[in-house]
């Protein structure tokens, strides 16, 4: 129906060298990984941009590589979520597995890629939050002085003040490295459909080591698809000061303090997102309470 109106030019580089030269020629081009997010937008077709340039990353061999040793797993940005589940379900962190499984059907996970899930424009999936909780690092490729450079960065450093992942101009994530963590408390929860009801959904990722009744190195992120990721070291340190199990008054206190930080991050959280965040937080604390009460008995 719209044939010939504004058909984007598709570039399919076969390696990163070709990618660099295309980006230099077309600095305003958009990157296309699995396309699950772009294609699910109601206004994705016909393209509104005239003379749009799309770089399809699916043909770049380097981005499909998967490597694993006893310390970490390294995924190329174009490794699909289904491939991650198939190759490392037994060894990968629980948060990552639960996060991928919460997406649901393999009709989606077979196409969605790890790099694409982290770099969606104007929308945040639960992935970057998960990666922050796992202390993951990403290799960012960017053009500087007409050359392709790479730099390993912590995902937290890619986050801007609004909680969105921001890459350097003409940059892309080429690899993601996830350390095999020894943390014994890992928790991921998502409520609502990120794609269909972004203003009602929320997800949270939590990792920590529970030793006796205190948490060591806790990391917690809340993701609001329409707003961004809420991650603060202050929230993490709130958890380090707690002694589990918590009673109701301590839980209420924790809740109000967490919400003080969340409110300072985002003003536009809907009432439903607030209630759902509260529910997830309670669930996390209940799990920790349970663990704190059972672990000493198991050890003895």
């Amino acid at each position, binding site marked *: *129906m*719209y*044939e*010939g*109106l*504004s*058909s*984007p*030019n*598709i570039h*399919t580089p076969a390696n990163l060298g070709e990618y660099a030269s295309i980006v230099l020629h077309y600095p305003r081009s958009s990157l*296309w990984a699995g*396309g*699950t997010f772009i*294609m*699910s*937008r*109601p206004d*994705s*077709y*016909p*393209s509104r941009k005239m003379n749009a340039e*799309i770089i*399809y990353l*699916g043909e770049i061999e380097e981005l499909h590589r998967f490597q694993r040793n006893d310390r970490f797993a390294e995924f190329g940005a174009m490794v699909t979520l289904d491939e991650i589940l198939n190759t490392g379900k037994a060894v990968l962190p629980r948060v990552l597995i639960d996060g991928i*499984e919460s997406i*649901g*059907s*393999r*009709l*989606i996970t*077979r*196409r969605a890629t790890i790099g694409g899930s982290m770099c969606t424009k104007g929308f945040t999936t639960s992935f970057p939050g998960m990666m922050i909780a796992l202390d993951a690092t990403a290799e960012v490729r960017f053009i500087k002085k007409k050359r392709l450079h790479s730099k390993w960065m912590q995902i937290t450093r890619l986050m801007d003040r609004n909680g969105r992942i921001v890459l350097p101009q003409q940059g892309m994530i080429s690899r993601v490295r996830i350390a095999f963590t020894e943390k014994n408390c890992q928790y991921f929860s998502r409520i609502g459909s990120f*794609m*269909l009801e972004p203003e009602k959904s929320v997800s949270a990722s939590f990792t920590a080591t529970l030793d006796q009744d205190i948490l060591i190195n806790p990391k917690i992120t809340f993701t609001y698809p329409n707003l961004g990721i809420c991650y603060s070291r202050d929230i993490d340190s709130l958890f380090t000061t707690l002694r589990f199990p918590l009673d109701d008054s301590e839980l209420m206190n924790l809740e109000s303090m967490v919400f003080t930080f969340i409110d300072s991050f985002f003003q536009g959280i809907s009432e439903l997102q607030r209630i759902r965040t509260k529910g997830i937080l309670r669930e996390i604390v209940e799990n920790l309470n349970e663990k704190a009460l059972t672990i000493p008995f198991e050890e003895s």
Partner: protein
Amino acid sequence: MKIDCTIDGKTLTLSLNSDKPLSLILRENMGDEGYVNHCGGQMCGLCAVLVDGRAMLSCMVPAFEIRGKNVVTFESFRRTRNVKDIEKAYESVGAYPCPDCYASRTMIFESLIDEGVSDSTQILKELSMVRCPCMDPDDEIRIVQKGIELRRKRNVRRTQFA
């Protein structure tokens, strides 16, 4: 953009917008309006087709990605022997999808049966994409398991994926 692909066994060269969704190509260019829906991002799950033997939502596949690929829609799949196994499975379980989701659900069943997926959680997850509530989850599991059994009896080779 000119795209060479095989749709329902026909080798075609289509002149299309490069980002046109496969669901729209099938509806507008191939006239397959009866079996493929285009919900415009509402995730209805009623547009499943087989691309190189694997079930995919055609609204998620842009035109440039079907270059050189083999697309099978329900239109041609319903004339194959494999569909008989699924129909027999429907009959033996005594549950049929409604006319709205029949094509899409059958294509997903075919993909699951071909892969030999018998794990009930995985079956339900895969079928959760179809938003139509016409089928009971237990029936869906039984249909896939029955389909796998029938396929095994016929000694059909599974599709080899690249």
